[in-house]
């Protein structure tokens, strides 16, 4: 059995709208079906013109998704939801791309701070906020191999964990605030 062009288009849009809540998805699809049906009643060519004007099923569906993912992420999603919501638009909007990169950088810094805490618990002797090494005059983390020698000294000492914790938290909070701000801007600029 061959599908009608309307069914074919609608079912492809449906696949892309999978992430939406069922009632909203049904509503969108019913309206799309109704639209295409009325176009098809005008003439055979009107339907073809209409299908072309709507764009690919993916493009059409994405207009609902981009916003929805962001909106839901803003209304109580996890930091990862927010970041992914911004990433979704990064391919089509420069602002979203730059924002995604900036937020990722913040999270990466946060992750390295928390990583240092872990290293300090595993190998406290070699981990610190080091200064003095000629090759790498400033270094936050664990010195691999034989461990520290006389050329370096640890600035942080026993304060390493509190400092790393504070910095890590600050980076996380900034990253989160930035991603919320970007998400709001993206929604507003539509």
């Amino acid at each position, binding site marked *: 059995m061959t599908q009608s062009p309307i069914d074919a288009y609608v079912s492809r849009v449906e696949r892309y709208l999978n992430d939406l809540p069922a009632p909203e998805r049904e509503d969108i699809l*019913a309206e799309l079906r*109704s*639209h295409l049906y009325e176009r098809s009643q005008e003439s055979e060519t009107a339907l073809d013109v209409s299908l072309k004007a709507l*764009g690919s099923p993916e493009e059409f569906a994405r*207009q609902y998704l981009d*916003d929805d993912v962001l909106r839901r992420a803003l209304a109580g999603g996890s930091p990862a939801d927010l970041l992914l919501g911004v990433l979704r638009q990064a391919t089509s909007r420069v602002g979203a791309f730059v924002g995604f990169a900036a937020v990722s950088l913040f999270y990466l810094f946060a992750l390295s701070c928390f990583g240092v805490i872990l290293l300090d618990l595993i190998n406290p002797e070699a981990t610190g906020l080091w200064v003095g090494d000629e090759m790498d005059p400033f270094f936050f983390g664990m010195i691999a191999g034989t461990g520290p020698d006389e050329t370096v000294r640890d600035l942080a000492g026993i304060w390493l964990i509190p400092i790393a914790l504070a910095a890590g938290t600050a980076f996380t909070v900034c990253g989160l605030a930035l991603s919320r701000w970007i998400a709001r801007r993206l929604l507003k600029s539509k």
Partner: protein
Amino acid sequence: MQDTEALSSWKSQLRKGAAELAVLAYLDRGEAYGLEILQAITASGELGVSEGSIYPLLKRLEKSGKIKARWTDAPDGGAPRKYYALSSEGQDLLSRMRDSWRAFANALTRIVEAKS
């Protein structure tokens, strides 16, 4: 060539805000369904509403409570239609948008059309 590009990017900036106002203003005349709104708005051309963008726009306006929707049964055997109408919040927004639009259009016209 570059001039055409500059013109079309300026035009798309200009249209960005127009679509929402056009939809709300059209609905101010009474209830209407998507295709009807689309045809009315695109008939006058230039307003940056396309077949592909009208439904997502209507959904955004519906979700933010500016318009409300209801489904009606199919007119003589056709497909059911989704009719939209302004909510009181949308009515409010529209009248404020109208004021700013008039002020904006007047000010701009005075400058653009002025003969020195």
